[in-house]
Each structure stands twice: as structure tokens, then as C-alpha cells.
């Protein structure tokens, strides 16, 4: 039941749809979306005089219901399949007295139409203004999100800074990966949920429903939120905030009836998360450092969830997702069972990326059937063994070449190799070695295929720029300056790559802003706001990102982007994210940093070897494996 005082703007919004690109982004009405029932006027007996002491039960209930909108700060096509949104939507619909809807940022064309027509940004399901909701939950998937947060708050008619919001404005809650280093974004949020959201979000909703029922003020509602573990309330929190970790991930229900978008989204498939966390310990990787410990779901749970999810949704692909899917201790059994069931159907099983060894390729082979049509993706990350040891990518050249040989021998004709440029200690030799490794890999691939297929061998090399991330051993390292990165790109382009290898690289400009925010402090909120005022939007879109705007904004505020991104941090320096506890310990980060830079010594994966003393496993939170890992 939705509040009658907040009418749907659907009729007015529909008039704009004929004028925008891809209107299906904005209609909602997907399978398994919530269907908020408007409280119809006929329900109210208007023939009798109103009596203050008697309130219609329906009205009473609508007034007490907590209205929540979950928001992804990019367009529908990007956000609708985001797993944080999928999971938290399912969480919210199970909390009694809560009505949950979704919202996305409209593309530039509709945003302009909304402003021209003086219409506020609305939720997808009931198309009511977001500013009429009690709570807006915004997930932050990456560091380039600041301008989109400003845009969606502004389109909603909500004050950008939490401190400027009035009693009647919604509470704005942040979460997602970026919330682990919340300082640059804290000003936008009344509260942030740090860590895994399943349990914390349910507690937030229960608390807000209760404090709304009691009619408490904004400050009092926030005070109640601050008592929840994992909640950071910038205006109240003193001291540390402990990240939430879902200890019982293995038996936590899997979402098997997610909203099924009409629009083809970037993850246009059913996603079943089979493992949470990764203990391989790549020293640049925030996801690997933060989402510990490793917790596996059982093979039976995974197969049942995939089967049920496919039957319910009618989707034709299921992805077994995780940070390192083929590390699941029962992955071979899971893939065999699923591929047996869906063999000779139009349903595909997909793995997000391949482990760099023959086993990884064998697993990809189980689900691809006889036709190896797509491309396999591998991530050696660096060209030399020395640098791979520095980053703790425990992969040898023999592993890389062995995996590629196996892939092309098994029938694949296209592969993609991911590398990073600007890793700590990188030299020109390391850069050139990317091309050398790629050439060796390409030669290996040609050797592995029958003569008549040699012309079909394709390989692409994708080079990203290293961004130092908070909570990783490399947080202490500065980013290589942009001009120097551009020189290294040229060096790589000049190194002779075999014909047939396609080289792509990320623009270091966006990575510069990413690095500024990833290790930033609270002064950066002003930078995000100023860049938004100057017109920056959709900064994660390479065709929308404009470094000149950011430089202008930084200049006005007296900030030097390159200095912020490239400054090394002292090992004992106080850091803006020090107050976030519960992840890997500072001692571990320092130890890993020192191992990397002084001796290029590697640290083994604790799910296969000895404990690396990262400090995450404590009390109720422990590594959970479904079996022994091979």
C-alpha cells in the first residue's frame, strides 16, 4: 500500500517517453518487480464526516509503512542486474511493513526533459517522487560515482549535503564497495552501511519502521541507526565502525526470482553467487582484501538455486559468480551436474573468468559443450615473473602458456588477456614484457591449433591502469603520473605485437580521478559537487568522462589531482579509512607491502596453504569451504 499523499507521476512521465532513447528503461513492470498498490480513494468513506479520532485502517497502515527506494547511480541497463540491488531488494521485501522500489539515474536525454518539465526523479515501480520516500539506499560500485550521486539527488529535489536536509526529506543511506573508504562521500549520506549488507540492511529497515511509527525526529532516527553494527552515521559516529560480514553466507537464501529486466542489461543472465571472498591475496585487489574470509555455498545449494532460478525466470543463461569461481572446492561437480542438465538446450552456463591453468580451461570446457564459440578471459596482470611476484599473482609463465595452449587445443579461437600498467616497481622492461608475453602466448596458440585454423587465432590484450585502493597492501603506493603512464602506453605500442593481437588500453585520465577518490578524505565531496556543477556526469563512461572539468574543479578548490593520486603514504600515517575495522589488519597490509617491495616474496592462498595472518577470521566469522580445495 502506498501513501496517498504521494501520487504517481506516471501519466506525466509517459508523455516524455516518446522523446527519449530506449524508453523501456523507464517503465518498470518487469517480471517479479514489486507492484505497489495505490491506496484508492474509493477505499475511504467520503460520505461520512471526517473524525479525528477514527482513522481508516488502510490509511493508518499506509502512513506507517516504511517507503524505501534502492538506487543504482547509473542507467537501468547498467544497474538493474547489480547483485547488491538484487539481494537488498529481496531482503527488503521480507521485512514486514516495508514497501521497496528501485530507481536509476536517467540518461542525459530524460534528465534534460525532467528538468524542462519540472518533474522530479521517480521510483520505477510506482513512479512516485523519490523525495516522498522515507529512505533512499544508494549503492556505490566504484569511485567515479560522486557526480552521479549529485545528479540523482538534485533531480530528486533533495539537498546534496546530508546536513542541509530537512525533517521531511528522506534519509539517504550509502553502501557498496566504495563505502569501505567512505570519507570522500560521507557528506552526501545520512548514514552508510559498511560491509556486507544482508543482515545490516534488514536491521536498518526494522529500526526505521519502528522509529517512524513512533514519530521520532530525523536526529533520533539516525541515533537509533548508529547503534546497528556496521552503520556509520557521519553526524554521530565516534570511533571505529566494524564492517559487517555474513558469517552464514553458505546457508543464506539465494535469490532465485530476481526481477527479470525487459532491457538487455550488461549482466543479462541469472547470477548465482557460489563463493564469497577470495584468499589468493593479489596485493592490488580491494575486493580480494575486503571480502574475506572465503565462504563457499554447497554444490547442492548451487545446483538447486541455478535450476530453480532458470525455471522461474525463463532466462537462458546462468553465471556462477564470485571473485574466483573455479576456486570453489566442488566446481567440477557443479559444472558437470549443470551441464548435464542443460546439454542440448538453449541454456548456457557461464564462468566470469578463467583461472590461469589447465584446470581453469578444463572447467570452461565442461560448460561450453562442443562449440567453443566465445572468448576465454585470463588475467596474468603483469609481463614478468618479478612483477607478478610483487603483486602476489601466483602464476608462472608456464601456467599462462599452458592455459592458452589448452584453450586453443580444446577449440577456442579467441582469448582476452588482462594486464595492468603502472603497478608498483614497474620498469620499462616490465612494460615491454607484456608484449613479449603476449607474443609468446600468441605463438603458443598458433601451435596448438590445426594448420587450417591458424588464420582464425585471435587474441586481445586489455591494459588497465593501476589504481591504489584503500584497505590493500598497495594503498601506500602512489599512482604513476598520467604523463608517465601515457609514455608507457606508447612504449607498449612500440613493442612489436604480433599481427592478430589487438591492444586496448584504458584512458589514464579517468584512473587518475579514481585514484584521487579511492584514497581520499572528506575534502573531496566538494570536488565531486563542483565537477557536477561544471557538468560532469557518468564519469565511468569513457565517452562521457572529461578530465578538463575535473581539473577546473580541482583548481578552483586548490587541489592538485596528480599530487593526490601519486602521493605515497607513510606506513604509519593516519588514514581517512582507519576507523573502518573488521577487514584485514594494518599489520598485515604493511607486512604484505614490505614483502612486495623489498623482496618480491609471495604469500600463499590460505584456503590451500598456511594461514597468512590477515586478521579477518575471528569469533563467528571463519573460512567456510564445501570441501578440500585442489
Amino acid at each position: 500500500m502506498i501513501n496517498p499523499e504521494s501520487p504517481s507521476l506516471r501519466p506525466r512521465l509517459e508523455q516524455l517517453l516518446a522523446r527519449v532513447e530506449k524508453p523501456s528503461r523507464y517503465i518498470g513492470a518487469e517480471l517479479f518487480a514489486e507492484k505497489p498498490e495505490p491506496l484508492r480513494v474509493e477505499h475511504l468513506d467520503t460520505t461520512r464526516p471526517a473524525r479525528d479520532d477514527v482513522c481508516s485502517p488502510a490509511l493508518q497502515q499506509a502512513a506507517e509503512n516504511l517507503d524505501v527506494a534502492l538506487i543504482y547511480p547509473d542507467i537501468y541497463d547498467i544497474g538493474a542486474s547489480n547483485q547488491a540491488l538484487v539481494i537488498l531488494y529481496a531482503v527488503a521485501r521480507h521485512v514486514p511493513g516495508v514497501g521497496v522500489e528501485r530507481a536509476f539515474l536517467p540518461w542525459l536525454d530524460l534528465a534534460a526533459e525532467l528538468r524542462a518539465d519540472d518533474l522530479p526523479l521517480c521510483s520505477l515501480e510506482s513512479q512516485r517522487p523519490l523525495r516522498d520516500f522515507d529512505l533512499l539506499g544508494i549503492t556505490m560500485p566504484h569511485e567515479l560515482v560522486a557526480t552521479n550521486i549529485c545528479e540523482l539527488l538534485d533531480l530528486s529535489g533533495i539537498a546534496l549535503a546530508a546536513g542541509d536536509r530537512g525533517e521531511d526529506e528522506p534519509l539517504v543511506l550509502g553502501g557498496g564497495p566504495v563505502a569501505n573508504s567512505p570519507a570522500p562521500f560521507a557528506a552526501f549520506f545520512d548514514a552508510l552501511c559498511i560491509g556486507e549488507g544482508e543482515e545490516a540492511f534488514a536491521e536498518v529497515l526494522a529500526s526505521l519502521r519502528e522509529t517512524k511509527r513512533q514519530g521520532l525526529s530525523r536526529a533520533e532516527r539516525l541515533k537509533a541507526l548508529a547503534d546497528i553494527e556496521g552503520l556509520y552515521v557521519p553526524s554521530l559516529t565516534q570511533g571505529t565502525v566494524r564492517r559487517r560480514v555474513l558469517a552464514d553466507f553458505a546457508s543464506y537464501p539465494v535469490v532465485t526470482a530476481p526481477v527479470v529486466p525487459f532491457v538487455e542489461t550488461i549482466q543479462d543472465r541469472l547470477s548465482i553467487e557460489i563463493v564469497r571472498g577470495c584468499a589468493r591475496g593479489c596485493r592490488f585487489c580491494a575486493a580480494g582484501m575486503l571480502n574475506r574470509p572465503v565462504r563457499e555455498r554447497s554444490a547442492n545449494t548451487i545446483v538447486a538455486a541455478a535450476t530453480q532460478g532458470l525455471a522461474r525466470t525463463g532466462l537462458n543463461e546462468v553465471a556462477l559468480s564470485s571473485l574466483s569461481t573455479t576456486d570453489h572446492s566442488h566446481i567440477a561437480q557443479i559444472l558437470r551436474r549443470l551441464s548435464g542438465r542443460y546439454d542440448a538446450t538453449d541454456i548456457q552456463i557461464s564462468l566470469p573468468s578463467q583461472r590461469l591453468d589447465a584446470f581453469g580451461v578444463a572447467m570452461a570446457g565442461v560448460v561450453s559443450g562442443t562449440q567453443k564459440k566465445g572468448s576465454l578471459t585470463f588475467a596474468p596482470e603483469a609481463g614478468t615473473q618479478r612483477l607478478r611476484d610483487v603483486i602476489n599473482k601466483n602464476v608462472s609463465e608456464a601456467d599462462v602458456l599452458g592455459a592458452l595452449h589448452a584453450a586453443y587445443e580444446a577449440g577456442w579461437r579467441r582469448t582476452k588477456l588482462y594486464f595492468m600498467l603502472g603497478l608498483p616497481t614497474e620498469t620499462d622492461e616490465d612494460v615491454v614484457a607484456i608484449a613479449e608475453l603476449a607474443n609468446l602466448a600468441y605463438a603458443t596458440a598458433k601451435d596448438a591449433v590445426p594448420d587450417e585454423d591458424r588464420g582464425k587465432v585471435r587474441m586481445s590484450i586489455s591494459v588497465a591502469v593501476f589504481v591504489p585502493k584503500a584497505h590493500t597492501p598497495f594503498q601506500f603506493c602512489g599512482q604513476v603520473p598520467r604523463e608517465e603512464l601515457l609514455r608507457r602506453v606508447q612504449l607498449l605500442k612500440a613493442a612489436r605485437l604480433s599481427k592478430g593481437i589487438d591492444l586496448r588500453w584504458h584512458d589514464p585520465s579517468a584512473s587518475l580521478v579514481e585514484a584521487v577518490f579511492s584514497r581520499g578524505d572528506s575534502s573531496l565531496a566538494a570536488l565531486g559537487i563542483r565537477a557536477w556543477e561544471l557538468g560532469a556526469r557518468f564519469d565511468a563512461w569513457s565517452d562521457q568522462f572529461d578530465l578538463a572539468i575535473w581539473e577546473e574543479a580541482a583548481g578552483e578548490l586548490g587541489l592538485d589531482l596528480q599530487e593526490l593520486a601519486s602521493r605515497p603514504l607513510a606506513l604509519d600515517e593516519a588514514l581517512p579509512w582507519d576507523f573502518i575495522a573488521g577487514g584485514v589488519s594494518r599489520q598485515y597490509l604493511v607486512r604484505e607491502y614490505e614483502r612486495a617491495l623489498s623482496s618480491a616474496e609471495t604469500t600463499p592462498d590460505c584456503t590451500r596453504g598456511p594461514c597468512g595472518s590477515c586478521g579477518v577470521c575471528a569469533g563467528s566469522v571463519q573460512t567456510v569451504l564445501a570441501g578440500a580445495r585442489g
Partner: protein
Amino acid sequence: MADFSLRMGFAKQGPVIWLSHLEVVRAMERCVRRSGLPYAVSQGFNPHMKHSFTAALPVGTGSNGEYMELGLASLVEPQQALCALQAVQHEHLPVLSAEYAPRDAPSLQLYYNEAGYRVVFAEASGEAGCSSSACAPECSTDSPESQTQAASPVEELLRRLHTRQSMEILKKGKPRIYDLSLYLTGAERDASDPNALLLTILSRPEGSLRPEILLAALSRPDLSLKLVSLTRVSLQHKELA
């Protein structure tokens, strides 16, 4: 097609009129998968569901009767198939009928070559029709006489539909002339609504004409008509001379 061709009738209504043809196809494929019907898949390289659809509906256009022909690997009673589909259908893409197509039936797109459309315009007066500045000259008058005496924009559009011989539209930057007598086979007022017209448009092997493009072309430059809805109300077969 596969062994058995199940011809399913379905509608496209409510908010989903904004789906593209490809999005409708994907949504219907998902409905079929959910239904558990033994649909046929193509062999080899990239197995996919065997099906065909009637001609694409423009984005923003609803329909009371589209068809999808689905290949089934084994025979299912049509009524049983219909029940299975209806149990899992999307509420705005309801499955209306299911029957087997004759073995030698021509393809859906070839067969259903004539479509009826119902077009509803906003009231000629009143703010809905005047939201754009382009219509200011017609709508700025407050005199009730001028509106009752002059033909309404809908009437004028109908007159043009009856009298215009041809129209020119730009296709990929190049002008293309349509002989309307070949494509427009009917245009009349909808008796139930003074602001609605019923159009019948024939699609020919050499080309087809989209209703919203026809209406826009004939409204230019002076008719200020605001489209409220466009719905395909019928599909039929017409023998071409």
C-alpha cells in the same frame, strides 16, 4: 520450423508498449522457457529457440493481437499449452490463444501483411494538446465558434488520409516517395471516439509504411495533433494484386 508449429496469439499492452521488438521477443522466449513446454532448439553452433513473429511493432505501439509461432519438439494439446503459457505469462504480454499452424502454412510475416491500427489523439482543445509551442496558433483562440466551425485537426487529418496521393519521407538521409494508394488501404473515424481514427496499412514485398511516420508526415506542417496512443488492433491476410 520444427515438427509442430504452435501459433500463439498475444497482446502487448500497458507500459510494455514501450518495448522494442527485440525486447518483446526476449520476453516471450522467457515466457516459453518458464512454461516448461518442449520447445525445439536449433542444432549446432549456437542453439536457440525456434520461433517467428509477426512484423515488428514500433516502440510505443501496443497491440491486441500479435502472433508468435513456436516450434515444439513433441505434440502438446493446444489447450494444455495455452494453460501452461498463461500460468507464467507476463501480465502485460498475455497469451490469448494457441493452435497448431497447418504444415504448409506460409510464414507469419508473409501471411499477415495487413494491419489495422487505432490512433487516439488528445482533445483538440485543452492543455494536453497545447503543451508544445508549435501548436500555439491553432490553440490560442478562445472562441468556441472558431472551433466548431473549422474542421477539427482530426477531421483534417482524415481528409488528407483520403485525398493525398503520395508522401515523401527521409530514409537514411535520402528522400523516398510512397504511393499511398499502395500502402494505405483504409482510414476512417472510430465511431466510439471523435478523437480516434482507424487505419489499415498493407505491407508489400517492396516496402512497408509505419503508421506513426505516416501520421507525422500528413500532419506537417500545420496540424497540431498530440498522439495519445497507437494500437495495432488487427492483423489479416490480403492477396496482393
